[in-house]
């Protein structure tokens, strides 16, 4: 229970999320560097090779943070809370004509509207710095360079054509 709550609150904290992603990626690079060192490379060279093999660290980190943040439980709960507060506000305003209650309704509606707008704004900002359009197509290189693939006019491989035709 405690663990779930802790994870839930971590989702609200963007910096914590970034730190976690960075720690995970850094761990990967350090493990790779250690393996290179075992092969006989010195520390500097090992680290350099590990970084090269990893690819664009900053881009991978951004993608991971974005995927986590966009679909986190925290964001989902916020959306639900804002929607509920908006609907509650509408309900209070329409059902009770008294001045004070109407004010409460207005406040709740405003919370819902502004909260929703903030979430939309956050999503748009995240889309802006999304730099790799096709993350699953990154970095697979054929060793058999001498074997050309039969690309069609759209640049699709035979695999992709078969899948598209299905």
């Amino acid at each position, binding site marked *: 229970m405690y663990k779930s709550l802790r994870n839930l609150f971590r989702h609200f904290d963007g910096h914590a999320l970034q730190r976690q992603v960075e720690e*995970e990626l850094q*761990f*990967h690079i350090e493990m790779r560097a250690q393996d290179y060192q075992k092969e006989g490379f010195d520390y500097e060279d090992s680290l350099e090779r590990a970084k090269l093999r990893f690819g664009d660290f900053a881009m991978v980190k951004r993608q991971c943070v974005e995927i986590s943040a966009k679909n986190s439980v925290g964001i989902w709960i916020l959306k639900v809370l804002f929607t509920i507060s908006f609907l509650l506000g509408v309900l209070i305003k329409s059902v009770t004509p008294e001045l004070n209650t109407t004010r409460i309704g207005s406040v709740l509606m405003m919370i819902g509207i502004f909260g929703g707008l903030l979430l939309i704004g956050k999503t748009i900002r995240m889309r802006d710095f999304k730099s790799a359009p096709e993350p*699953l*197509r990154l970095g697979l290189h054929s*060793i058999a360079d001498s074997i050309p693939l039969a690309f069609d006019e759209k640049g699709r491989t035979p695999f992709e054509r078969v899948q598209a035709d299905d």
Partner: protein
Amino acid sequence: MRRTRTDLMQGTLELMILKTLAREEMHGYGIAQRIHEAVEDLLKVEDGSLYPALYRMEERGWISSEWGASENNRRAKYYKLTRAGRQQLAAESVNWDRISRAVMKVLQAS
């Protein structure tokens, strides 16, 4: 211009990750190493490309993750297959087999 880069078909990396995790839970580096060993240098997967795929798969509910201690006592994030992931692996394996047989037929015909 000759193209020397083989693009991964959508979902191929995910299928390799699912299959790798079917045996045991692993951290990202372990997954990368296992895939690297399995493909025997026929393909070179850029290490970093693994992570967005892992995060996406977790978001889809195919895998789950938990922080733990690695073999060298470092903090590492371990991934394991969920029930939905096992179902996905079964479905994608069948799909992959169908596609590869179809491509072979095309290649053999021409």
